[in-house]
């Protein structure tokens, strides 16, 4: 692994562990992120504002009136070395309901045709993998998850949609995602998830965190609507789709 420190202006720098989508790189990113959060909680990193973990790098934001790139890098040196050899942490496990096809998944038919399979096979392929949340961004709460089964990989759509409905479950290349917001998008829409991924009223507004694992469970449209209504009325809580795997809260607790 070749760690690089990259300049990102006068108030941030990026620790780059590599240039690929790779669980080993993610392990390093998350380990460094957790280690920095611990130091920060112990007030040992004055001037640190926040960190942004991605697939392969961690960007450190700081206040140049309080600290500097040099001082922070010196303080982080031992953490960098440890992070390079980190093993993946077991994130929380989620099993989220997914309504595939029809109006909820307008690209299911075309996706099946493109990979030479039936619609049921596409659903089975998409549900058959437990995905890893690599990172959140570019929109609030938007999870980049992987890896999609080799046989289900398609490039982005040639014509991006102007309007992808909120809740859409989509695939592109080796990744799958759920759109938390209505937005433009170029991914293939397979279905819809009724569980809101972002709620500013929650202590932790994003449902998912980097390192979490996500599996989808198919539900019929009637069940989808029932869940959606129950979530809206408060009868159901998104936490109910959280599995109780060992170490489930380790990542969150460390923040």
């Amino acid at each position: 692994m070749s760690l690089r420190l990259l300049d990102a202006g006068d108030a941030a720098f990026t620790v780059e562990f590599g240039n690929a989508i790779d669980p080993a790189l993610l392990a390093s990113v998350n380990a460094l992120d957790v280690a920095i959060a611990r130091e920060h909680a112990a007030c040992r990193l004055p001037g640190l504002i926040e960190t942004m973990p991605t697939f392969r790098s961690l960007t450190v934001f700081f206040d140049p009136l309080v600290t500097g790139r040099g001082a922070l890098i010196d303080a982080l040196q031992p953490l960098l070395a440890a992070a390079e050899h980190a093993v993946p942490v077991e994130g929380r496990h989620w099993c989220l309901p997914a309504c595939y096809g029809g109006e909820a998944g307008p690209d299911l038919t075309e996706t099946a045709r493109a990979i030479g399979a039936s619609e049921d096979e596409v659903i089975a392929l998409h549900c058959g993998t437990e995905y890893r949340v690599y990172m959140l961004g570019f929109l609030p709460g938007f999870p980049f998850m992987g890896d999609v089964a080799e046989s289900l990989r398609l490039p982005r759509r040639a014509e991006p949609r102007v309007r992808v409905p909120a809740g859409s479950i989509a695939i592109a290349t080796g990744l799958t995602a759920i759109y938390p917001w209505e937005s433009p998008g170029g991914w293939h829409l397979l279905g819809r998830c009724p569980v809101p991924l972002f709620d500013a009223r929650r202590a932790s507004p994003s449902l998912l965190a980097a390192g979490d694992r996500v599996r989808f469970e198919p539900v019929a449209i009637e069940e989808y609507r029932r869940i959606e209504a129950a979530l809206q009325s408060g009868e159901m809580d998104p936490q109910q789709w959280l599995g109780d795997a060992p170490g489930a809260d380790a990542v969150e607790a460390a923040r």
Partner: protein
Amino acid sequence: MSAAPSLEVVAPGAYASLQDFGRRGFRRIGVPWAGVLDARLMRIANALVGNAEGAPVIECFDGGLQLAARGGAVRLAVAGDAVVEVEGAGERRALGSWRSVTLAEDEVLRIRRLDRGRVAVVAVEGLALSMVMGSASTYARAALGGVDGRALAAGLHLPARAASGGSERMLPDPPRPDAGPIRVVPGPQADHFSAATLAAFVDGEYRVTTDADRMGVRLEGPVLAHVGAREIVSDATVPGSIQVPGNGQPIVLLADAQTAGGYPKIATVIGADIPRLAARRPGEAVRFAMVEAVEGERIARAAEAETRALVAGVKPLLAGGIDEAALYSSNLVGGVVHALSAEYRPLPDVETGTSKQSN
């Protein structure tokens, strides 16, 4: 005492939103900071009305914003190179910016245009907004902050506090937008460009396109060709990131920009120069100059010292022992006194007054 007055948005102008220092700590879940494009304007405007310097303010682009005091007097201040007028009881009076003014009930403050720059900030004495995730800043894409998460729209009422009275304040020597180079730190993906391309980037002249808002500024100028791949595995963006998409035309990301992206970033505008870039209008020129990261840090500290000196320079608006502003607000004086006032300037026509202003 009657209920607290409100400030009615009569017209939002080109785009106006409520902002403060921004929302820190949530980039990891895809939430950008948002916040004012020019924190210096916010700090000065808040000092002019006696607010805490990070209190939420109205940030607006160009002219057109109109605000009316309802249910009582409201004190405001405009920071930015703005031409302002106040209209009430059938008369209009012109004001400079960089001062506070108390609107009597049903008086309207109008930002007619900006002489220079694109962004102005209006502080409202005692403006109270609820915080969402630690900030009142509007981030419309996720409906966060402001009022109901949206940009300002005509008819909206903002809760204000009854004007506290006392003398108005002014800033004697205000900062002005300048046309000098925008300083950048190369990277994080400068190695995706050849030395010749990096040289073309700093030697060339770019122009601000019409695609320039709180998310970012698309520039037009010398094409920046990538060496190898035109996309990278997504990594974090920062305010000031200069992304270069496949067409080679750079995009500078600002306060509301997405938190991650897959285009190589040739350089990053330093924090002190982000407001200077945001102040450039479509069609205006932009040149870049490279500095090292440590030099950027030094510039940040110098800029902060300048801002503190400016804020400390805010003083009561007094002329010959008479508080002119208080006279104005009292509506006891007529047009003769206005014409004698040093700050009185005849207003150019709104429709024709804007075209010659860019430099």
